[in-house]
C-alpha cells in the first residue's frame, strides 16, 4: 500500500481481456477481482503467500517458464493466460501427487463436501490417479481437548503454520523433516494437547483446506469451517496499527 496516496495503475491482459490493476497487486488478486478462476491450495486471503502448492501457475507472454500467480506482481502490458493444456496438465499432476502421498479417503473424511482438495479435483476433472498410492502409516493426534490432527489428510500447505504465526502470534505449528518425511508438528513434535504455547483459538482448524485439522466430535462430512473470520481479523488488526 503506497504511503503517499499515489497509487500506480497498470493495464494488462488476462486471457485476452483488458483489465486494470494497482501495480502492487499480484496476478492472483487481479484475476480473482475479475472473476477469472485460478486454483490455489496454499494461498489464503489474509496470510502471507509462499507459492508452495504451484497450482496457481500461469503463463505470461514472452516468458518461457510458468509463474506462480500468488507471488508475482502485475506489470504494465503483461499478457496472462490462466488456462492452457500445459497448465491443466501440470495442475492435474500436482493434485494426483498430493493424493498419492497420503491417505485421502473422501467417503470417510470429516471434511467431505467441505474440502478444497476435493473441490479442485472435481473442478479439474480428476477421476483417477496415474501414480501408485503410497499408503503411509500415520497416527491421529486427538490429545487436544477441542481439536483433532489427522496427518493422513494433510497436504502440507502450511496454512496452519502461517495463521498461528502471523495472526495468532503463537507459532505452535511448524514443519519437521523434509521431503516425503515432512509433517506438521506442534512444539517439540509432542502431542498437541501438551503444547503449552497453544492458545486453543482454533484458527488453524478453520484455515485447513482439507480434513487434517478438525473440531473434536465431528463425524464424516461435518467439518464445516468458518471462512470469514480471517479477512475480518486482518482488517481489524490493520486498523489498530
Amino acid at each position, binding site marked *: 500500500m503506497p504511503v503517499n496516496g499515489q497509487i500506480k495503475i497498470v493495464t494488462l491482459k488476462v486471457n485476452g481481456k483488458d483489465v486494470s490493476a494497482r501495480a502492487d497487486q499480484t496476478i492472483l488478486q487481479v484475476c480473482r477481482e475479475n472473476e477469472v478462476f485460478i486454483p490455489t491450495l496454499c494461498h489464503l486471503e489474509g496470510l502471507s503467500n509462499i507459492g508452495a502448492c504451484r497450482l496457481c501457475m500461469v503463463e505470461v507472454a514472452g516468458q518461457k517458464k510458468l509463474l506462480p500467480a500468488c507471488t508475482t506482481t502485475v506489470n504494465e502490458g503483461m499478457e496472462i493466460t490462466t488456462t492452457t493444456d500445459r497448465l491443466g496438465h501440470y495442475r492435474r499432476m500436482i493434485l494426483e501427487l498430493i493424493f498419492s502421498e497420503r491417505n485421502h479417503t473422501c467417503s470417510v473424511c470429516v471434511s467431505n463436501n467441505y474440502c478444497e482438495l476435493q473441490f479442485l479435483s472435481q473442478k479439474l476433472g480428476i477421476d483417477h490417479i496415474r501414480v501408485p498410492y503410497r499408503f503411509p502409516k500415520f497416527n491421529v493426534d486427538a490429545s487436544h481437548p477441542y481439536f483433532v490432527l489427522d496427518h493422513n489428510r494433510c497436504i502440507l500447505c502450511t496454512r496452519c503454520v502461517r495463521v498461528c*504465526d502471523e495472526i495468532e502470534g*503463537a*507459532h*505452535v*505449528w*511448524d*514443519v*519437521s*523433516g*523434509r521431503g516425503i518425511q515432512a509433517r506438521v*508438528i*506442534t*512444539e*517439540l*513434535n509432542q502431542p498437541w494437547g501438551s503444547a503449552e*504455547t497453544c492458545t486453543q483459538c482454533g484458527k488453524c482448524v478453520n484455515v485447513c483446506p482439507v480434513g487434517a485439522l478438525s473440531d473434536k466430535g465431528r463425524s464424516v462430512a461435518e467439518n464445516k469451517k468458518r471462512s470469514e473470520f480471517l479477512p475480518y481479523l486482518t482488517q481489524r488488526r490493520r486498523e489498530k496499527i
Partner: protein
Amino acid sequence: MPAYPVKIQPPSDDKRWGLVMATMKRHGYQSNAVIETLHTVQESFGFLEDDSLRFVSKALNVPLSKVYGVATFYHFFTLKPQGKHTCVVCMGTACYVKGAGEIMEAISQKYHVHPGETTENGNLSLVTARCIGACGLAPAGVFDGEVSGKLTPADTLTKLAKWE
C-alpha cells in the same frame, strides 16, 4: 516486565553449555543464529536433546516448533545419541547406481539398524549421505571420518566387524 530480557540460564551446570553460550553471544543472541547455535550444541553434546532445543529456543527467542523444524530439516543434526562408531553410506546418484543400496541392505540385515538409527548396544550408528563428493570412488562410505571407496557389501561388513 524488566527493561532487559532476563538472562536465560542453561538447563544444567555442565561446562559444555559455556561453548553454546559463547556462540549465542558472538551472534548477539540474534534469532538468526539458530543453526549456528545448534551446530555448537551438536558438536559439544553429540546430539540435540529436548532440553537443549528448549534452551536454544528460549535464549534466542525463537518458537520451539521452529527450532525443532530446523533441527529435523538438516541431516547434520541428530536428535538421538550417536553410537561409538559412525558409518556413513553415500546414497548419491553415482554410489546408488554402483550398488550403495546393496551395501545398506547388508549392514541393515547384519546389525538390525535402519539408516539414521544406532544399534541397541550403542556401538554403531548407520547414517546416509546424499553425496559426499567422492563420486569417482563410488560406491563410497565414511567410517569414523575416514573415506573409503569402491566398496562391496562384503568388505563393508569386514570393516564394520573390526569395530565390534
